[in-house]
């Protein structure tokens, strides 16, 4: 036996039925009794308390992780409600899983290193090819969290991450680990064994206007830009429209015109969705250091589709001519909102690169982590928003 992959999906309104349908479908497609590894992706329409017991019972998988998502990406379509189950049975691939809890209250570096250690403990001594994690987005300090992971795995191992989402409610996400349901946690997966990983990541936004510089910041809070309150950057561009920021956490402005942070050594700007705090500061996921060169960024549906295409090309190139067995897409939920009815167009662009035979599964996340080229020797894992990460497992 080499590697077999099954994908099941259901959008049945009743959670128990949806879980049963998705589980059986995945298992039927897998066509193997033994399941080595499973991933469950579910929109928050379905209570995991109702779905997980059914899924664990059906799958009887040796290793299972899962996450809440704003939507599910399938080979032919995009669904904003439903449950997807990916089952893998393989003599080539190897997986290790782990979890860490209490992200809101724990030192982020420690949390990151705990997650990495826990996952490593569950992994057999075979070659590690990559690390994937699903985390609640309310991590105290994302930069430190990633450094904590790297403190265990080193700087070479590619790290891919997805922020779990609760369909734009920003209240409570969930993470699944074996037969347990967690909130405010992260679950990690070491991808290893005889596996190749091809990674590609893009967003498709371009800088607008003159560059501006961050004068004062505190971790993920940008306090002043060019000597003015940080929010002024949006007020300059949008005048009264910028007030929308105050009443809407993920406003249209933030989606359409994120901040782009210039990263030395990179061709792309690092994208950050921001919100305005009452004192006029801007807050984002991940740190923005003092001195950062920033721009308001602009993109459109075409540039999004093009970015998906380029990310797929990059992933294919990095796979080094190996045959892809599964495409795992982690894509920002803001892109789903932006592309709306045309969200599935990105899948078509990805299929233009990989063809139609490779199964595709993916989720819409709240924040994406992928290796980002900087002046450093190795690509560093960085958190950004509005991006698409194509991971090809071969």
């Amino acid at each position, binding site marked *: 036996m080499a590697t077999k992959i099954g994908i099941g999906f259901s959008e049945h309104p009743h959670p128990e039925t949806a879980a049963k349908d998705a589980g059986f479908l995945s298992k039927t497609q897998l066509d193997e009794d033994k399941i080595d590894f499973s991933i469950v992706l579910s929109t928050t329409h379905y209570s995991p308390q109702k779905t997980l017991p059914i899924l664990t019972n059906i799958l009887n998988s040796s290793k299972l992780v899962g996450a809440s998502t704003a939507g599910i990406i399938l080979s032919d379509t995009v669904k904003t409600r439903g449950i997807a189950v990916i089952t893998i049975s393989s003599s080539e691939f190897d997986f290790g899983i782990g979890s860490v809890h209490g992200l809101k209250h724990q030192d982020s570096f420690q949390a990151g290193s705990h997650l990495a250690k826990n996952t490593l403990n569950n992994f057999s001594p075979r070659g590690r090819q990559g690390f994937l994690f699903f985390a609640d987005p309310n991590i105290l300090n994302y930069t430190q969290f990633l450094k904590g992971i790297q403190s265990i795995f080193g700087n070479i191992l590619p790290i891919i991450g997805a922020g779990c989402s609760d369909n734009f409610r920003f209240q409570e996400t969930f993470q699944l680990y074996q037969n347990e349901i967690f909130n405010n946690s992260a679950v990690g997966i070491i991808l290893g064994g005889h596996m190749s990983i091809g990674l590609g990541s893009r967003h498709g936004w371009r800088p607008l206007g003159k560059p501006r510089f961050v004068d004062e910041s505190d971790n993920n809070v940008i306090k002043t830009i060019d000597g003015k309150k940080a929010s002024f950057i949006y007020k300059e561009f949008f005048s009264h*429209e910028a007030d929308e920021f105050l*009443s809407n956490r993920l406003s249209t402005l933030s989606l359409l015109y994120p901040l782009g942070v210039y990263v030395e050594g990179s061709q792309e700007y690092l994208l950050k969705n921001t919100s305005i705090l009452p004192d006029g500061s801007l807050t984002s996921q991940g740190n923005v250091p003092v001195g950062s060169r920033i721009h308001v960024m602009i993109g459109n549906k075409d540039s999004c589709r093009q970015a998906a295409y380029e990310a797929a090309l990059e992933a294919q190139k990095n796979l080094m001519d190996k045959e892809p067995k599964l495409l795992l897409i982690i894509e920002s939920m803001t892109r789903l909102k932006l592309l709306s*009815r045309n969200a599935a167009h990105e899948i078509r662009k990805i299929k233009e690169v990989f063809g139609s035979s490779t199964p595709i599964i993916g989720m819409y996340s709240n924040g994406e982590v992928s290796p980002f080229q900087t002046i450093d020797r190795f690509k560093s894992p960085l958190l950004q928003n509005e991006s698409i990460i194509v991971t090809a497992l071969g």
Partner: protein
Amino acid sequence: METSSNLLSLIGFCLLISASGFLTFLLISRNDQIRQLKEILTKLRKSFDDLDEQAKLIVKTDLELNKAQEELDRRLNGLDALQKVSRLISTTLDEEEMFKRINQSLVTQVGFEKTAVLIYTENRKLIGRILIGIPTEEVKRILSSFENYQPLLSTLKEGQTLSSINAPKQHREFVQNIFNVEHFVISPIITQHGILGIVFVGNSINSFPITEGDEELISILANQISQSLENVRLFEEVFLSTKNLESKIQDRTKELASALEQVQNVSRIKSEFISAVSHELRTPLTSIKGYAALLMSGKLGDIPDQVRDRLARINTHSDNLVKFINDLLDIARIESGKAEMNLTKTSLVQMIENVHDLLTPQLQNKNIQWKMEIDPLIEDIAADHNQLERVVINLVSNAIKFTPEGGTISVKAQKINDMIQIDVTDTGIGISEKDVKRLFDEFYRVDNQINQNLKGTGLGLSLAKKIVEAHNGKIKVTSQLNQGTTFSFTVPIYKEAPP
């Protein structure tokens, strides 16, 4: 020494002058460069600022386009879902099924996190028929709050659609509070008979706000639900009423069938009775007639003239009685189905001429003009010759009886589809509308001077009707007092049996 010293001083002086000139030159040159650089920097700043201004313009245009696109996308999504909902609910006539078809995925496609369709029951209590994104434990509180907040219900009853954009502050805060949403549309499900329920959709604080397009969309959805609901309920009403009517018809039909059976039984008993009595009467009558004839023949000895006269009367009355009894027997036989019509090919023209010949003396007595307007080539009829001739004789005899001297009797015949209609028209005294209705009843005699003077049984027309009907024909009469009367009856055209 002094000279060389002076020379050196001169040289030094010259060098100093030259260096200072050079330095001055350098200084001027550097200042020029700085000035040029400043100019370039100013230009660069200006370019950056221009770039920024252009960017602001681009961004504003782009934002407007994006908002228009977003609204368009939402509208398209909404319309698509609305079209699906409309198609699904308009193709069922079952209320339960109707609401079942408005499922969660369709409603989600319209683009709202929370949806509620609340419907009034027959006893005017609100119940939740569709509840999406609303926790079950909250439903009771929502329904109760709704029913207790009359100002909002009154506004909705007027047919107004309210939203977080246009609702008065009090209403807006009420809806936001009970449904725990920021943006909402609430629209009544209303018909000409009043409010049937309410459609609510809403989004939480972090979601997209409502637009005017959403108001229109939900208003259309509510309208569609109201139409479908009205159709469903109307259908249920009609269905129940039809079922009720069918049940009543079945009961009535059973009653009528039972009554008919009773009437038929009575009629059969009556016919059997008449038949038995008639037979019993006819035998002694034959004897009476026979003995009267024997006495009148003088074979038993001469009889005085007065006795002969009385015997002649006995004979005449006996004949009348025999005819009466025969008519009764015929009616009874036809009614009981015992007297089958022997339908044969019969010449109508011949039959009418025979009747004319038979009744010519009576016609002549009253100087009545006879008109026979029948096409000699008219089709033959399928008739029991003797029985149908009795009908014609009866009708013409009646016509003679009620037509004053010098009047006219005409007989016409015409083809109507597969039947021949024969009309016997006189210029007699006519029959009142009241009498026309009962003319074919047994023993019924019109109360007029002529009938008072001439004896009759009141069975002739009744018998004629039965004979015509036994030929699968119909008989009717039209009359105007003092103008005349027309009796019309139909008989089938004779058709050769297929070889």
